[in-house]
């Protein structure tokens, strides 16, 4: 067994070097370089901030309503470390975390059951899409009436969004398991738990991960929206409060804070995903 005629992709090939040697003239134009692209990004951001600042100072726009970058910065430095802000962050963050965990675990499990059992799906499946199409924010007053100004009402609203998205997501992940793999698995002798554990779940992971990433944003949205309708605290509540008292710069500071949270969490997802899905790399 000596002759291997094929070669795998990751093995570096001398052919690749020849190719680049043949076409040395193909240097990227300066606007295609990474340095240019990053510079362009920074310039656009800076230009936007400067324009905003100038427009506000010269009162091309009403500074009361539109704030300005330096004001936002001051608000961030003063407000964000304050006790009130930290309490709000804790309230919102806690609710988001709890609802994300509850919603994603229960939604994924429900989706798996729906995907695996034609009977359960026959009974409950048709409800999924209609319920999922209700604008959930509209339910916020209802949940607040039922559960009061508590963390529960925020969590219930966020879970009601996350659960259905992930249930549909996990169901279609199960349904889209490669038919060839399933046939192979059956012939090889995999059954029930082993089939689920060794074939169905692993092939559902990429789809489910994409769903999880999406639903974190939705959990944040649900909680903040619920707080905006009515709550005793939280970032959503703060946004309403500061908007109505025309402290626009503080509102922007909170928005920046929310954005940073979402970006950081997304970054964590990327890390976990890369570790979990090593096999997807070529």
């Amino acid at each position, binding site marked *: *067994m*000596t*002759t*291997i*005629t*094929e*070669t*795998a*992709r*990751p093995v570096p090939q001398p052919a690749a070097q020849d190719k680049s040697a043949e076409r040395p003239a193909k240097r990227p134009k300066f606007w295609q370089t990474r340095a240019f692209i990053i510079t362009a990004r920074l310039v656009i951001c800076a230009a936007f901030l400067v324009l905003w600042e100038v427009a506000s100072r010269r009162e091309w726009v009403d500074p009361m309503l539109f704030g300005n970058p330096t004001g936002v910065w001051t608000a961030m430095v003063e407000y964000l470390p304050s006790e009130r802000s930290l309490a709000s962050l804790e309230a919102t963050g806690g609710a988001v975390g709890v609802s994300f965990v509850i919603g994603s675990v229960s939604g994924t499990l429900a989706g798996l059951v729906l995907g695996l059992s034609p009977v359960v799906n026959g009974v409950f499946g048709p409800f999924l899409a209609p319920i999922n199409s209700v604008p959930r924010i509209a339910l916020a007053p209802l949940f607040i009436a039922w559960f009061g100004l508590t963390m529960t009402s925020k969590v219930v609203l966020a879970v009601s969004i996350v659960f259905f998205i992930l249930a549909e997501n996990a169901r279609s992940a199960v349904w889209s398991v*490669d038919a*060839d*793999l399933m*046939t*192979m698995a*059956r*012939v*090889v*002798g*995999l*059954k029930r738990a*082993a089939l689920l554990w*060794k*074939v169905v779940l*692993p*092939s559902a*992971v990429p789809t489910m991960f994409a769903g999880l990433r999406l639903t974190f944003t939705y959990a944040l949205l649900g909680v903040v929206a619920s707080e905006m309708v009515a709550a005793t605290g939280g970032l959503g509540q703060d946004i309403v409060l500061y908007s109505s008292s025309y402290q626009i710069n503080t509102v922007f500071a909170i928005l920046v804070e929310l954005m940073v949270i979402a970006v950081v969490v997304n970054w964590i997802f990327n890390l976990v995903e890369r570790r979990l*899905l*090593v*096999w*997807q*790399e*070529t």
Partner: protein
Amino acid sequence: MTSRTEAGTAVQAATPAPAARPAPLISFRDVRQVFRLSGKGDGSAARNRELVALQDVNVDIQAGQFVALVGASGCGKTTMLNMLAGLVEPTHGEVLLDGRAPRLPNMDIGYMFARDALLPWRTARKNVELPLETRGWGRKERRERAEEMLELVGLKGRESQYRLQLSQGMRQRVALARTLAPDPSLLLMDEPFAALDARTKLTLQAEFLRIWENNQNGDRRKTVIFVTHDLQEAVLLADRVIVMLPHPGRIAEDRVIDLPRPRAELLGELQFTKEFQDITHGLFERLEGAIGDRGADAAKQGETTTP
């Protein structure tokens, strides 16, 4: 469509009469397979179409034989494999494997597919281990066996690579190693080399043949049922070639290939010998001639409409 009330009166001429031989490992008796196609319901005629995938199939296969089923797509070759694997039950007639109806899963069967069907999240080695897991092998034995099999198919050093990191040919090699790892006595091969380029295909055919020809547990080799649409491949590899025609899927010719064995080292040259070309030519006429003359008519017959 002729309604068949008397089983066995139809085309049996092609099947050689089972003389005083030992009981066959595999027999298809009057097998007929009908698939219902759900019509789109735009007209009454389009509903309830039936596709006759197999018609009057009678074949006996002895243990240790390498049998190739050749035919165009739609002639029911894969259906026959699926019946042996226990994935499909015949609509009519019976399929016997070792005297019994095949059941799923059968641990004595190795089934290799045209597409590699590797689990992409498992390394090459773990893929080869999969059938050993369902057969209750211990961790250490599995690992050793998988490494041994990967070496046998020329993939030493690639054990820890994932599917996406392997070339087409390598993936089929891993699939071959997986199929052979539990040492099944019956190999079902469904166009295993069809997706490969000509060169890789020849290499893999030779390697597979070498493994098979060398593997004689005691007195006999593994039984192989090898489905392909490539007549040359069939004649090159098999002891016996069964030519099938589509619409409805049926057996047209059943021929013993008496080219010398072992052939693994000769595959390249064998193709250019007169003997090989005569056999291939004869079968080619049978395969293409029938399709050319009656293909269009037969195609209409195959799909009948039941009002």
